[in-house]
């Protein structure tokens, strides 16, 4: 019997972990779904959604432009030196545009928004939880899910595709800067190849990704903050752990989801 236990134990442990992970994701999805449905409950919280769009979207514009610019530039640089060996530098435009629209745009946008807004969301909601502000909302007959989570969900769903689009455009010009201005690829070739190679399906795929990433980021970050009090650690320690795990889990899941989505979209 003993040898069977030895074989069974790690497998049982693995199974337990897997079940726990699936349950955790299920809880987050239900949490997201509740918050999402409450977006449509009248009266519409227009003002709060607008504030969140400003916070998640508008305030991320600068950092998105910066990362997009350098990402495009490095793509232009790498692409140029790869293509120049085959004498096909004229294809640089399509290489930069496709990698941006299909992969770099949605993924890097999501990761930048996690760093800027996702961590802030988790910390803000976590602090509201430990300082009893969420309980205070309940005592006033205000649904904290509707008041705190729904506007963030709505804003994230609006902002992610727009920021991704911005990333794509700025990245394209970054590639132009390094590829054409610095390394001398004909700009007309660069832009015409970029235009002709990107199809509607690519753009649509990028948007689908960015929407899925929005769900993942806002779901995990809000969930981690909202349930800070259920951790073993209390107070500031609990909030810091919630923020850390919000960032780590959503970054990992973004990359996992990206692979899965790409498989389906190809």
């Amino acid at each position, binding site marked *: 019997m003993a040898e069977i236990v030895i074989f069974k134990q790690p497998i049982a442990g693995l199974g337990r972990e897997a079940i726990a992970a699936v349950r955790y994701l299920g809880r987050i999805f239900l949490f997201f779904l509740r918050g999402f449905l409450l977006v449509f409950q009248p*009266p519409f919280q227009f003002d709060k959604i607008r504030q969140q769009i400003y916070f998640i979207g508008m305030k991320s514009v600068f950092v998105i432009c910066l990362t997009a610019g350098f990402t495009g530039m490095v793509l232009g640089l790498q692409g140029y030196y790869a293509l120049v060996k085959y004498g096909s530098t004229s294809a640089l435009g399509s290489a930069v545009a496709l990698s941006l629209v299909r992969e770099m745009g949605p993924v890097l946008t999501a990761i930048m928004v996690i760093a800027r807004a996702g961590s802030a969301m988790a910390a*803000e909601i976590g*602090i*509201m939880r430990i*300082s*009893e*502000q969420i*309980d*205070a909302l*309940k*005592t*006033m*007959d*205000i649904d904290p899910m509707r*008041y705190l989570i729904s506007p963030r969900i709505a804003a994230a769903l609006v902002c992610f595709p727009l920021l991704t689009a911005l990333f794509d455009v700025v990245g394209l010009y970054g590639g132009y800067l390094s590829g054409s201005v610095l390394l001398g690829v004909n700009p007309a070739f660069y832009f015409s190849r970029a235009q002709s190679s990107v199809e509607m399906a690519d753009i649509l795929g990028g948007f689908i990704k960015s929407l899925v990433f929005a769900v993942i980021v806002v779901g995990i970050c809000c969930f981690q903050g909202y349930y800070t009090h259920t951790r073993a650690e209390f107070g500031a320690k609990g909030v810091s752990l919630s923020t850390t795990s919000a960032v780590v889990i959503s970054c990992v899941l973004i990359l996992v989801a990206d692979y899965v989505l790409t498989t389906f979209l190809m």
Partner: protein
Amino acid sequence: MEAAPLIELRNVRKTLGRTRVLDGVDLKIYRGEITAVIGKSGSGKSVLLKHIIGLFEPDAGEILIEGRSRAARSAPEKRALKRKFSYVFQDTALFDFLTVFENVALPLSERRNERPAEIARRVREKLRQLDLDDVEEKYPSQLSGGMKKRVALARALVTDPEIVLFDEPTTGLDPIRKNAVHSMILEYQQRYGFTGVVVSHEIPDIFFIAQRVAMIDEGRIRFEGTPEEIQRAADPEVRAFIEGLESPRDDLTGVDSHPIGQKRLLQEMIRLQRHEIPFSIVLLAVESRGGTERIGGHEAGQEVFKLFANHVTQNTYITDTCFRFDINKIMVLLPDTNRQQAMLFCRKISRSLEGHPLLDGPGGQAAFRFAVSAGIAQAAPGADLDDLVAAALEGVFVLYESHA
């Protein structure tokens, strides 16, 4: 036949983590009364309060509100019930992303029953009463601890609730502000008739405003009764707790505290019975006329009360005892004194107040507007202490009124 309780807890049990916090709590809270819940730190007072408002569900037992439990109500009924409650959190729980004005307005604006102009009017009125009118655009983090408490109080009272739960409303406040908050709670309660539950450490001050007191110990209600009853309780655990927290001096006025005074009264009563030495009591009540619709008025009122108490002590002999009797009353115990002599004592106090630098002011320009009424009684042999106090309360007359 006593009236049906507004809120009744029956055998409520709750375990949080591995600690059993509530272990069969039975408690009745009556309409229109202030019930104080006292007990050691960590004895489950706040948890009890959170059960009443529904933030926690009991593991076992039930909580009846107006005779019915929460679980037995439909969703709209639950909402309607929730709107009758307000909760003042221990650490204020103000929304740090909203200004003071928005914080106080939130419970009204989210209900959407009223137009914004009407909401703004009600919020401004509450802010004015609590002397917060000049900070309405500030954020909670820019305010002092005492101000935050007041904002929390304003937010709780702005909805005109029927039941207000206070979780240690005076912790961390100085004696003047603490007594001002107590007298404000009392005044609001008398004016609007809400039912109050106050979790408090302030012993014996809380007894001045509560009609009922419940002491919680090890997850159960150890004692339930009136403030007089708990102060006379025989239970050694209750006695140890109350006496442990009582200081011999009242921290606002500096005169003797209520229990010390009660002991002195008892001693005098025995002297009267054994040796037929007469004694009298003078009950002095201070009414502030400084606009008590504002907390500033209440704070000024406490200041007057303090100054007046100091003034009285200065005019007594060493054998006399001066102690705090109620939220705005002090009692002077005059041994070896009959009614006529007590009357002379009152005259002396009244005369000496004229021209008092702070209380009366030079040329009749008093810093505060207030009145003092007095009641005198001489103890009769064999009479009850309660009768003596009642007799003093019966014959109350205006002793002094500051110049307007």
